[in-house]
C-alpha cells in the first residue's frame, strides 16, 4: 500500500497575473472557481470513537481516534457532531443517506425525492467547465443491505448520476483535454460529432412536444446531457497544455479489479479528480467509497473477506462481537485514510491562489451513525476545505439535536446557491450553521 501524498501531476495553474489587484477574482471580474465534492462512505461509525473529545477551534480540539488519519489536513477540517436525522427512518440505510444528501425521505423506487446537494450547488459554481454536473466515481460496486442504490448524486427522482468504477476510463477521458505542448491539428471528427448532436437535439425537441409532463422532465435531463456533451467536445477541440494526466496503470498497477475496495484504487481516483479540478475541467465531484450498508469486503485493510455490513457493521463476525467491533473500528479508520489521501492531494496542489483544498469544500457523510442500530443520532458529518475563504475550518462544532440538513444548507448558501431552504418536510431547514461560515 502506498503512503498518502504520492506525487500528483499538477496541471499548470492559471497565472496569478490574470488576477485583479487583491487576488480575489480574475482581472476581468469573474470570480475565482470554488469546487464542491461529496465523499460518501457506507455503514457509519462508532460515535464514541468518532466525536472529538472537546469542541473549539485550532489547538482547542483534537482529532478523535477514528478521525486521526486526517491529521495532515486538520487545519482544513470542520467536524460537526450532535446533529440528527429528522426524516423518519422508514428504510435503514436509505432514509438516512437521502436525508443527509437531499434533505428528504427516500423516494423508494425513484430512489430520491429531491436532487442531491452536489447537483444543487453545481449550477452555481460550474462555470463553463467540461463536466458542469460533475465527475462521479466510486470505489466499491458491491450493493448493500437495504441501500439507496449505487449512486450518491441525483439530479432528481429516477435521475441518478451513476458513478464510474473504472479509473482508466476516466484517465482516457481526461487525456483528451490535454496536449503535450505542440498544437495538434484539430480532429475533424469533433465537428462531425457536434453536427450529430445538433441533429439529435432537434429530434429530442420534436419528440418532447408529444409527451406528458413526467416524460418531458426525463427528456429535459437527456437534453441537458446532450448539451453537456456538446460543451465537452468544444473543450476537446482546444486541448490545454498540462503535466501528464496521472495514469492509473503506471502509478497503481496492483490496484485490483474495478469495483474492488483498495486504497490504491482510491488513490488512482484521487489523482484523477484532483487533476480534473486543478485543470478546471470540473468543479464538482462525488466519490462513493462504499454504498450505503455496503456488503463490500475490507480485506485491503486486513479484515476478513466477508461482508463489512453484516460481519462488522452488525458485529456478526464468526470470531465474535468484540472482534467485530475491533474490525469495524479498523474499517472506519481505513475509510478515513482513503479520504485523507484525497484531501492531502488537494492540499498539495497549488491553485490560482492558495491550494486546491483552500478553494474547495468536500462534504463527508454516511448512511447511519451507529451501525448496529441504524441510528440517525450524532450523525457523521465532516467538511473539508475553506471554499475560497467562505468557510471556517480547524474546528469541532457540537450542536445537539439540530437537523442534519443544516450542514448541506450552509454549504449551499456559502457556495452561492442562493436558496431559502433545503429539503422538505422534517428534513427542511431554512437556516444554517453560523459557526461554519467565515
Amino acid at each position, binding site marked *: 500500500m502506498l503512503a498518502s501524498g504520492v506525487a500528483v501531476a499538477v496541471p499548470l495553474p492559471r497565472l496569478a497575473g490574470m488576477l485583479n489587484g487583491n487576488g480575489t477574482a480574475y482581472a476581468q471580474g469573474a470570480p475565482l472557481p470554488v469546487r464542491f465534492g461529496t465523499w460518501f462512505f457506507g455503514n457509519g461509525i462508532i460515535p464514541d470513537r468518532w466525536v472529538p473529545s472537546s469542541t473549539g477551534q485550532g489547538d482547542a480540539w483534537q482529532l478523535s481516534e477514528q478521525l486521526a488519519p486526517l491529521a495532515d489536513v486538520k487545519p482544513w477540517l470542520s467536524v460537526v457532531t450532535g446533529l440528527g436525522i429528522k426524516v423518519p427512518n422508514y428504510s435503514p440505510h436509505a432514509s438516512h443517506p437521502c436525508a443527509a444528501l437531499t434533505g428528504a425521505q427516500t423516494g423508494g423506487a425513484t430512489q430520491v425525492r429531491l436532487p442531491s446537494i452536489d447537483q444543487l450547488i453545481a449550477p452555481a459554481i460550474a462555470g463553463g467547465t467540461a463536466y458542469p454536473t460533475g465527475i462521479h466515481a466510486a470505489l466499491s460496486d458491491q*450493493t448493500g443491505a*437495504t441501500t439507496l442504490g449505487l449512486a450518491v448524486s441525483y439530479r432528481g427522482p429516477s435521475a441518478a448520476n451513476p458513478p464510474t468504477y473504472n479509473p482508466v476510463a476516466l484517465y482516457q477521458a481526461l487525456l483528451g483535454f490535454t496536449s503535450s505542448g505542440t498544437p495538434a491539428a484539430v480532429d475533424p471528427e469533433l465537428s462531425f460529432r457536434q453536427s450529430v448532436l445538433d441533429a439529435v437535439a432537434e*429530434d429530442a425537441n420534436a419528440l418532447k412536444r408529444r409527451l406528458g409532463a413526467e416524460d418531458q422532465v*426525463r427528456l429535459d435531463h437527456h437534453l441537458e*446531457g446532450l448539451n453537456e456533451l456538446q460543451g465537452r467536445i468544444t473543450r476537446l477541440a482546444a486541448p490545454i497544455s498540462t503535466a501528464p494526466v496521472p495514469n492509473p496503470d503506471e502509478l497503481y498497477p496492483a490496484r485490483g479489479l474495478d469495483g474492488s475496495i483498495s486504497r490504491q484504487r482510491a488513490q488512482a481516483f484521487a489523482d484523477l479528480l484532483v487533476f480534473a479540478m486543478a485543470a478546471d475541467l470540473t468543479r464538482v465531484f462525488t466519490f462513493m467509497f462504499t454504498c450505503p450498508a455496503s456488503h463490500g469486503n475490507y480485506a485491503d485493510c486486513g479484515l476478513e473477506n466477508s461482508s463489512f455490513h453484516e460481519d462488522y457493521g452488525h458485529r456478526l463476525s464468526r470470531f465474535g462481537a468484540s472482534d467485530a467491533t475491533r474490525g469495524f473500528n479498523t474499517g472506519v479508520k481505513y475509510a478515513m485514510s482513503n479520504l485523507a489521501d484525497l484531501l492531502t492531494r488537494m492540499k498539495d496542489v497549488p491553485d490560482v491562489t492558495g491550494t486546491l483544498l483552500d478553494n474547495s469544500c468536500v462534504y463527508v457523510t454516511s448512511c447511519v451513525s451507529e451501525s448496529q442500530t441504524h441510528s440517525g443520532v450524532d450523525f457523521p458529518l465532516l467538511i473539508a476545505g475553506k471554499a475560497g475563504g467562505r468557510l471556517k475550518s480547524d474546528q469541532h462544532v457540537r450542536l445537539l439535536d439540530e437537523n442534519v440538513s443544516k450542514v448541506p444548507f450552509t454549504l449551499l448558501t456559502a457556495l452561492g446557491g442562493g436558496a431559502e431552504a433545503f429539503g422538505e418536510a422534517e428534513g427542511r431547514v431554512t437556516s444554517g450553521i453560523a459557526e461554519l461560515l467565515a
Partner: protein
Amino acid sequence: MKLDVTEAGAGVYPDSDSIPEPGVTGQKLMTHFDNLRFGTIALALTAAWMAGACGSDEKAGTDAASSSEGAPPTGDGTSGDNPTPLEGLFLPNGDAPSATLHRLTQSELTHSLQDLLGADVPMGELEPDVRVGGFSSIGASSVAVSPAGVGLHELQVLAATGHVVADEARVRAQLACVPENTADGECLTRLLAQFGRRAFRRPLTDAELQRFTGLATSIGGAEGSNVLTGVRYALAAILQSPSFVYRVELGEPSSADGGLLKYTDFEMASRLAAMFWDSVPDDELLDVAAAGSLATADDVRLQAERLIGDPKAQRSIAGFTRELFELSHLEEAQKDTTLFPTWRESLKEAMREELERRVLDMVFVRKEDFLSLYDDRQTFVNDDLANFYGLPAPGQPGFHPVEFAPESRRAGLLGAGAILAGHGLPQRNSPTARGKFVSEMVLCRSIPPPPNNVPPLPPQAGPEVTMRERLALHRQSAVCASCHSMMDPIGFGMEDFDSVGLHRTMEGTSPVDATGTLEGPGLDGSAFNGLAELGAALRRQPVLGPCLVSKVYAEALGRGALKLDSTSIGELAAGFVASQHRLDELLVTLVTSDSFRFVEPKG
C-alpha cells in the same frame, strides 16, 4: 393519489437488516425496495412500506395513514376480492398507469445494436439499468439518462458504427446499399430510411429523413471525408436520437375501446420485438405493421408465434430468467476461498449458464410444465460445474444434460448453484436471504424494510451456535418475527447446502437441520426437509402459478401488477393452468390481451 409520507408511523416495521440482502447489479436499488414492485407509483410504494407490518400494505397503498397502526401480518390477497385463481397473490392498490417512455435496457440496447449493425459489433460500458421489483424493464419506465450516460452512449454508438463502415463487406451485409459517393442520393435515402425504420421502430418522418440524409451528405462531403464517413455519422445520429434510445409507445385514442388508448400497429411491433427478442423489430414485422396487420388480437398472435419461434426469443427468456432468479446476486457474490477452497470465480458464469439452460430447455425443447422446474432433477453441466457438484464430468467441451440421482439432496431449480451461492454471504449461509428470495420472487410475498432502531442481536459466536439458533433469538422480538417468519423458515429448508452451494451435513460442530415450513396466509403450512420436499411443497401452493404470471405480466408491461389487474392476471393464470403451465403459451396469450395492447390515457 394523495399521500402524506409524514403521517405514516415509524417503528412499526418488523425487523432488522442484520439480515443479509445481497443487492442487484447495475444502478441497483435496495433489495427491500425490490419487493415494492411498481416503479411508476413510487410514492404509493413509499407509503405502503411506511404504513406498517408485513403484508398489511395492501390497504396502505391508498391510504397510508389509515393502516399505520401496524396490523399483524395478513399475508395478503386474502381479502376476498381477488378471483379464485389468484388465491394468495398479493396485488397492491394503485391508479391505472398511463404510457411512459421506456428507456432501452442494457439488454435491449445491446441486442438492438447487434441486430442493426451485426452480431460482432464491439460493446463497451453502458449506462446501468435500474431494477425495480427485480426487473430492469420496470425501472426503464421511469429512469432518465444521466450526462455520463449520454457520453457513454455516444462512445458506444461511434464504436459500433465505426466498426461497420471500416469494412465494406460489413456495410454491404448490414445496410440496404453501398453509396458510391455523396451524390448517390437514392442509395443514401433508401439506406437511411430502412435503417431508421428499424431503429425507430416506425417509418422516419420526412423531416427526420432529410435531417439524416443531410448529415450524411454534409459530413461525407467535408474535406478529407468520404461518403461512408457521412453514413457512419448519420447512423450515429439515428442511434443517439431519443426515438431510438427510448421506446416511444404512447397509444392513440380509440373510440371503439371505452376511452382507452390503443397502441398503434408500429407501437405493437416495437412492443412485440422488445418482449420476444429484447430488440428492435425485423423488416417483416414492420411490414406487417405498415399493412395495418397488428390491429387485432389474432393479428398479434400470428406474429407473436413467429417471434417466439425464432432463436432470438431465447435471449429474452434468458434475460427474464436472470432477473426472476436474481442472478445479479450471483454476479456480485463474494466467497471466502480460505473457507471454500473449491470455489472459483469462473463458476459464476457456469452456474448462470446452467440455470438459463434449464429454463430454456423447459420452454423451448421439452415444452412441459414450467412449474415442474421446482422439483425436477434434470440439469446441464460443464466439466467445471460437474466437478464442483461432485458429478462425473462430461469430458467434452460445453454443457451436457445430466440428472441428479433420486437420493441426491440437490433437487429442483432452487438446488442450482446459482440460487444457493447467489443468496449466500462470503463466509456463511443466510437462510434469511434465501427465504426472502423464494418468498418475494417465487411466492410474491411483500416484505417491508426492517424497522428503525433494531436492537442488536445478542452477541454470540463460535461454531456451537447455528444460524438457525441465532435467527430464533431474532424472532423472539415480535417486531422482527412478523417479517422473518416469511423468510427464515423457507431458507432453513436449504440449510444442508453451504454458502457456495455445496452439500453439507454439519454446520460448525452441529449436524445440519434442513427442516422448514411454508407458513403464512395463502400458504398451506407444509413442513419439509431439504430441497426435494421444498420443491414439492412449493408446487402444492396455489399462488405459485399466479405469482409467476404476475411477474411475467409486470416485466412485459414495465410496471408492477396492481389490484386493478386482478381480472387480467386471473384470466392469464387460468389460461396458464389450462396450458399445463406452458410459459411460451402464457407469453403469447399475454401479448394478445387487452392489457398489452391498450393503455390508460393520461389522467
